[in-house]
Every structure is written in C-alpha cells, then in structure tokens.
C-alpha cells in the first residue's frame, strides 16, 4: 500500500462512520426535522469523504473531476430535497419536537 492508498482508506473509513451516524440518527432522533438533520451527514460529509478518497486515488484527472461533480450535484439536489421535505411536513401542520 502506498501513502495515497493509506490516506484514501482513512478517508473512506471516516466517510463510512458518517453514513453509520446518519442511520443511527435516523433511527434515534425524535421527529422529522431532527432526522432531516441526521440525514444531511451522510449526504454531505460522508459522501464527501468517500469521494475525496476516490479522487486522490484515481489515476486520471477526468475521473477525479467526475466523482467530485457527482458529489457537488448531490449536495445541491439533497439540500433542496431536504427543504422540500421540511416544507411539505410543515404545511401538513407537523411542528418541530421540543423537550418539554
């Protein structure tokens, strides 16, 4: 394993941890809005780490740019999707959970 491989592996492991954290949040958090917050972790950070690992390891620049493009696109799409989900939930009269 070269240095790059080691770094890439570390990045992937960190990314996988964020994916795992997202699932835990999805299962443990009390309402839709907090779960949305949990979901953004794998979306943004988790995939970000995995993509960085792949990008530094790829031999071609085009490949690195493509995986980064997928990540950026997913950031945009999921950010808006989360807003849409939150707004639809709010419009249906569901209010955020609070510790009473």
């Amino acid at each position, binding site marked *: 394993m070269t240095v790059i491989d080691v770094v890439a592996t570390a990045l992937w492991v960190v990314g996988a941890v964020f994916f795992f954290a997202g699932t835990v949040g999805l299962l443990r958090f009390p309402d839709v809005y907090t779960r949305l917050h949990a979901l953004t972790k794998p979306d943004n950070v988790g995939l970000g780490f995995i993509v960085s690992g792949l990008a530094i390891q790829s031999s071609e620049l085009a490949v690195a740019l493509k995986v980064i493009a997928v990540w950026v*696109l997913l950031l*945009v*799409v999921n950010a*808006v999707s989360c*807003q*849409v989900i939150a*707004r*639809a939930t709010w*419009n249906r009269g569901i209010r955020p959970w609070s510790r009473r």
Partner: protein
Amino acid sequence: MTALDLVFDVVLATVMPVLVWRILASKDLASSVVLFVALGLVSALAWARLHAPDIALVEAAVGAGLTGALLMNALSWIGAEAGVTEPVSRATRVGVGILVTAVGVGLAVAVIHLTQPVGLAHEVDARLADAHVDYPVTAVLLSFRGYDTLLEIAVLVTAALGARLYAPGSVPGGDDPLSPHPRVLARVLTPIVVLVAGYLLWRGASAPGGAFQAAAVLAGGGILLVLARVLRPPRMSSIAVRAALVAGLAWFIAVAALPLATGAQLLEYPSASAKQLIISIEVALTLSISIVLLMFFPGEPAPGEAARHPEDRW
C-alpha cells in the same frame, strides 16, 4: 472473488426479497411505494454487481425515478383506501402460498442446475463487425434483434395512448405551496439532465448507454419540470407532442422497410450508411420513448371536484 464480495452479494440478494415482502405486507400504501423506490435503488446495485451497467442505468432512471413518481402520483389520485378489491379468503391465501412456494423453489433449483454453458455471447462477438456498432448490447438491440426493438416501440406508443385515454391528465392551478424550491431545482437541473441524456446517447455506440437510458433520463427530467409546475403535462391535442410520440416508430419502420425496395431483407441496413442509420434511429427512439414515458404521468390531481372528471381536462 473475495470473501467480502460474497458478503456483499449475499446481503444484497437477501435484502431484495425482504423488501418485496415488506412492500406487499405493509399496511400503508404510501410506505409500500417508498419501499418500492428503495427496491429500485437496491436492484440497481444488483445490476451493477452482475456486470450489467446498461440495466443499472435504466433502472436508476426508471425504477427509482419514474415508477416511484408514477405510483406516488397515482396514490394521490386514487386515495389510500379506494381501489380495494374483494378481500381474499384464508383458504385461497393458503393455497396460493403453497403453490408459489413450489414455483419459487422449483425455479431456484432449475436455474441453479442449468449446466449448459452460456448462451450467445460468442455468436454476438463473432458477428459484431456486421453490426456496425462496437458495443454488443447496442448491437443486439438495434441490429441483431432490431425486430424486437421495433415492436417494442410500437407497444410503448400503444401503452401511452391507452394511458392517456383512461387518465387524460390535469393542470394544477393556484400557488405552489412548496415554492420556490422545486421550480429553482428543476431549472438548475434541466440543462444537466439534457447534457447527461445526450452523453448517454452518444456513448451507446461504444459503451454502456443508448436510446433507452437517454430517454429514461430525459423523461425523469421532464417529470421534474411538470412536478415543479414549470411545464404542463404534454397534451395529446398538441401536434408537436403527437409528432414526437410517433417519430421513433415512424422512422424505425421507414428505415426497416426501405431495404425492401432494393430487394434486400426487412431491417437489413445498407452497410455503407448502417452506422448513420442506427444513430438516427437511436435519436428518434430517444425522443419518442421520453415522450411516451412522460405521457404516462397524468399530472397532479386538481383539488376538489376537478380531479373527479379527468375527461373534462382532455
């Protein structure tokens, strides 16, 4: 194949039937639809593992994007409680259960014991030069089995006509309660969707991609525009829509029948211009299939009475 590959395959292959079971067992139809979307995503991974990236591409667009949207939309029209057929008696369920178990086990055993080594891969490879395309799957679709694809587009156009006859679609009015996000997102994504569709179509001659993939992506983008209320659902009354709907079929038939005039066989492309003809068919097919898929989407039900009489909105 390493042990980890095996673990991945086993987990994936177990998750799919479990999802199917949950889809059919879940009490709430909306969660069935969500689970169905999840199954679409998971099965795309299975196609990827089985070295079928073409199918993964179509599945990604059709299974996850289109069918999910169609089902969710149909659910808004039908309602969660409507559309219930007669309850099935216990005896029938037990009988059917026994029968399908037999079918499943028999099928699995039969498939695993297929010893005949592999079908037509060698034949396709040997004749690839005659097909005028470099990518085997595209060669099978448009050259070796052009017949199938020609009939398929006919089936698709018929299905689109049928779907529109039954549920002609509606035009939602009023303010968008989700404004402005869907509209902005659709506007940002549309150029990228068109670019990706073009890229997939262009790749089809030499690598995974082609008319079906491009059309599925385009249709997904179209549905996004309709959902975001940027575009209205395509209307049958529009000449442009009708032309786009039949373009693929008409052009394919023309190209297929033309060699008959020179004494050649049906679908025998003249070898000098074969590649150009295949590409032109692919472009026409992309257009038609994407419009067909878009026609399946009847639009949102309008609030109140309007949704009850969709024929008024033809």
